[in-house]
């Protein structure tokens, strides 16, 4: 179990794996934004703490 975890950790520390994971994370966020808002500009309300 310990060796397996070590291998997984080492795998995710590889530069190209890190890069792919990070890029996928950014792309997923952009995809999420696109799905919710499309190509319109957001109509998001102000932040709650702007009121204070």
């Amino acid at each position: 179990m310990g060796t397996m975890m070590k291998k997984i950790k080492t795998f995710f520390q590889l530069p190209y794996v890190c890069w792919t994971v990070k890029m996928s994370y950014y792309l997923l966020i952009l995809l999420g934004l696109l799905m919710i808002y499309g190509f319109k500009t957001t109509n998001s309300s102000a932040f709650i703490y702007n009121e204070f």
Partner: protein
Amino acid sequence: MIPYSSFSFFMILGILFVPVVVLGYKEKRSIVYNSLVHAVILLLAFASDIHQLVSFIVYIVWQVILVNWYAAYRKEKNEAGVFYAVVFLALVPLLVTKLLPVWNVSNIVGFLGISYLTFKTVQMIIDMRDGALKTVTVKEQLMFLLFSPTISSGPIDRFKRFQKDMETIPTREEYRLLLYKGINKIFLGFLYKFIIAYVINDRVIETPFIQAHTPLSTFIYMYAYSLYLFFDFAGYSAFAVGASYIMGVKTPENFNLPFLSKNMKDFWNRWHMSLSFWFRDYVYMRFVFWMMKNKWIQNRYTVSYFGYFLLFFLMGVWHGLELHYVAYGLYHAALMIGYDFFERKNKQWKIWKKNKGTEVLSVIITFHVICFGFLIFSGRLF
């Protein structure tokens, strides 16, 4: 245009940041160009409402005069009365902004971010009184107050920490790391504010079932609102911290996994940290020190409880003079005092032993207690 609330804002910010990034990679910083960036962002934030713009300019002039006058005075004298008067005068615009709505008078004094600028100014005055801050030039004060990434809602930076960042130009490698972290933060902000907070609000809070005010809907609302509040504010903070990093300033964080807090003390070290630390340092600590020095109350625990009460009462009132904000402050004061008492007694009685199981249980209990606090804060109860 409210900072970070629309994609157009981010597009403008992206364009404005191109020369900042290029200079950052060349281990340079242009004060003139950065000032232009701040001026554009401030104009975007305030120019659409002439009242806000005028109030903002008058406010800045007022605070600059106050701080510089006090800095000059402090070199000669150190009268307590003068110090309190200057702090009061620095607080006047914020007090007026909070009181006008109560008197049903239209608020022409307030503007976006007035609270956060006031915290910064009061902090400088107190530091001068303590001798921790000796001199401040108008330029330094303006750079601190008008730092645009955090203008609308903090995080509340400390002058000396900010000043250190302004005096240090990061190396190419340090800047590369700051830029990387900054972009990461901005994407995290998108995820929190524009995806998670939006979905919670749109798909849960705004549904007719939750808006129906039945006991079950209020129960669900309590958790939904707590998560919404966190993702909304943590999203904003991530944008503000991220933009600061890109400008080479390591603005402090506001959140550190607050819903995983083990108790109330832990929670206030993780939630809206820049505000809670400000209140801890400039209200609680000063109050406790003052009470102990004057020996009005001998018992240090009683002094500490009065300190908690004052801190959370002021924090509640700062949100607004509405009953639910005051109740929110008092609720947290009661929780902190209650937890402190329990923690002390538990050292003798050993009722709550420390192990993995109690730790998990502590997190679960604290989470529900916090959510109930946010239900009070939301104003849905009264």
